[in-house]
């Protein structure tokens, strides 16, 4: 019997995260304030220690390593909420960074990361320019998370060179081009010790579904409220059907994530297939929903005064974290067909 439905306990953990975010980090925090330019970095940083104190970064880490001692299910449910509320992507750095540090026996680091006082940036390596990467959300970070098929690690940001700030399409992010140290990262955990890269894909996928649900809800709300030709635009089939497609895609993506997280929890033989499929579907859904949401908002959707554009840009960023959806297709075809 396969139970593909979170237990009440599991849902409770996710709801705790959601209600904190709704109260303390509502989406509207990203809106430009007064005459301030919409270059809005680091608004989440002020809340990081509070999130840490609430255990948000250690939900899935064992208690004896300093975590909350829940599992991958709770962690995945929490990341869906992080996505929905557009929490800074460095939350991946904190959660996965703590896990890397813990597995590498760096208890000294784990505590600070979990507490939210030692921030961890993200590295996106650039295959077309070997030895370089983008550093995301990392200007104030001592460490930056990186992963590839073989494992996951933390890079000492002091050892990054040629750091050059670049403008990102996502103006809520710190963004820089950097040269990686020639040597391997000082802290590295191979995937056979702990499949952290796969967990990274899963958590990204959950965030992406959170984004997809966020844009679905945003479109539905707007379509009920906005009137043209004396009626809510949601009564027009063109808009209604786009919303229906958004909802359907999001539902399918979330179901697949539940299937993948179950495979991860039970370490089934098809876990790689299921997680790969989950991130692929989740990315595709998040980007398409974000595009449709902008269209549904009309001209408003193109401004940076509503959140529609943030969802789009965040979807593209999460696509690129770890590996992108285009590479995931290769991986999916390399896998054997899943057992019936």
């Amino acid at each position, binding site marked *: 019997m396969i139970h593909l439905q979170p237990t009440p306990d599991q849902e409770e953990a996710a709801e705790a995260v959601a209600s904190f975010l709704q109260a303390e980090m509502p989406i509207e925090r990203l809106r430009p304030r007064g005459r301030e330019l919409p270059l809005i970095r680091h608004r989440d940083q002020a809340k990081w220690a509070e999130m840490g104190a609430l255990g948000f970064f250690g939900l899935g880490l064992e208690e004896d390593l300093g975590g909350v001692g829940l599992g991958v299910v709770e962690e995945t449910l929490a990341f869906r909420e992080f996505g929905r509320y557009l929490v800074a992507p460095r939350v991946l750095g904190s959660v996965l960074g703590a896990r890397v540090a813990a597995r590498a026996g760096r208890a000294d680091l784990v505590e600070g990361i979990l507490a939210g006082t030692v921030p961890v940036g993200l590295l996106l390596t650039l295959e077309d320019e070997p030895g370089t990467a983008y550093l995301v959300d990392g200007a104030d970070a001592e460490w930056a998370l990186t992963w590839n098929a073989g494992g996951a690690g933390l890079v000492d940001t002091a050892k990054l060179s040629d750091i050059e700030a670049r403008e990102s399409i996502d103006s809520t992010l710190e963004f820089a081009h950097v040269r990686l140290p020639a040597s391997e990262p000082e802290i590295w955990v191979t995937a056979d010790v702990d499949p952290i890269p796969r967990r990274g894909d899963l958590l990204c996928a959950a965030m992406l579904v959170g984004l997809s649900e966020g844009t679905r809800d945003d479109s539905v709300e707007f379509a009920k409220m906005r009137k043209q030709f004396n009626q809510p635009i949601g009564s027009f089939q063109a808009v209604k059907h786009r919303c229906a497609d958004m909802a359907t895609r999001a539902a399918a993506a979330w179901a697949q994530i539940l299937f993948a997280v179950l495979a991860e*929890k039970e370490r089934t033989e098809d876990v790689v297939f299921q997680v790969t499929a989950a991130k692929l*579907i989740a990315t595709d859904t998040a980007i398409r929903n974000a595009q449709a949401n902008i269209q549904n908002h009309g001209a408003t959707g193109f401004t940076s005064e509503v959140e529609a554009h943030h969802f789009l840009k965040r979807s593209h960023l999460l696509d690129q974290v770890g590996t992108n959806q285009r590479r995931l297709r290769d991986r999916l075809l390399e896998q054997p067909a899943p057992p019936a």
Partner: protein
Amino acid sequence: MRIEISDEEREFRAEARDWLEAHVPKVHRRAYVRQHDTEWQRTLYDGGWAGINWPKEHGGRGLPPDQLLIWYEECARVHAPHWGCMATALMHAGPTLIVRGTEEQRAYHLPRILKGESVWCQGWSEPGAGSDLASLTTRGDIDGDHLVVNGSKIWTSSGHLADWQELLIRTDQNATKQKGISWVICDMHSPGIEVRAIPTMSGPFDSHFAQVFYNDVRIPLTNVVGGLNNGWDVAAATLGFERGTGFIPEQLHQVEVLEDLIKLALERHKRSGYSHLDEGDIMYRLATLRAEFAAIRALTYQSISRDRNGTPGSESSMIRLYFSETLQRLTRVAIDVLGPRMMELSDDRGWTYGYLRAFPATIAAGTSDIQRNIIGERILGLPRGPKPQ
């Protein structure tokens, strides 16, 4: 969130596998041949597998959804026959009689269905009432203890093979749309019934639809199910049946089809049957389909899990929409893989046949447009479209 294979499930799977391996017919068949389908139903009955999802008190096996899933998986594994022309009887008519029929109706019909002795068809759509089912006009006028039926039904699958029909007719001409409809059991051998096969685009000999004409057909009032003028409600009861699992055999089948197609594409690639560009595009789409079919399966498991917890979702329109469109994409990759060979309708009803047969997926039982309306209005709460001028 857990996988928990009980001993009972393990034993059930072994039992199903053994029995299926011993009993599944070895010969392929053309679609919709009555003898084939009813014989397989009789075999199931003799083996104790008939009405696997019907309640025990009505002669079924009363399996919970999880064991049902195991059964379907095992059927797919050995390519057991689908329901074929028994589909309406087993999935619609029988279940409706179980929940809304009289003792007499059940006693007569249920055993005949389970034994494969009677084939049923549906009589809902009309030439003028497709997506707008409630506007049906086939009428039944009371004459003594009978209804006298006149009109016509269309898109009746297996209409030319059926003994009985679940027929929706208008029995109160004055009531508003949905209120005057009755659900009746119609004997397809009655005088005044004419069945015309409708040839379809998937092949000249592939008539799985029929139009049925009723000319003063007399149906005893005792054949009304669920009360006169109560048919809309009775029909809705059947729609809810097996929402979660009814689709599974088809899904399992299509996953197999996809994997076969991946093999075929790789083979053709090895033989350089198509260009680099072509191949890249095809493999790209096949990879996407693998993920999408995984998601369909996940949606189904999720739906079963919700039912089990007593919190049914309203997602059946979503599963239907997502599945039918994914299925069409799959069949469209297939014909691209084939190249000129797609023009040939091979004897084994292969890829091209599958392509043609997939067109109704977004039309039958509510077009994709209707599904999107339902999702938009009932699930998302968007306002209904404006009323006609």
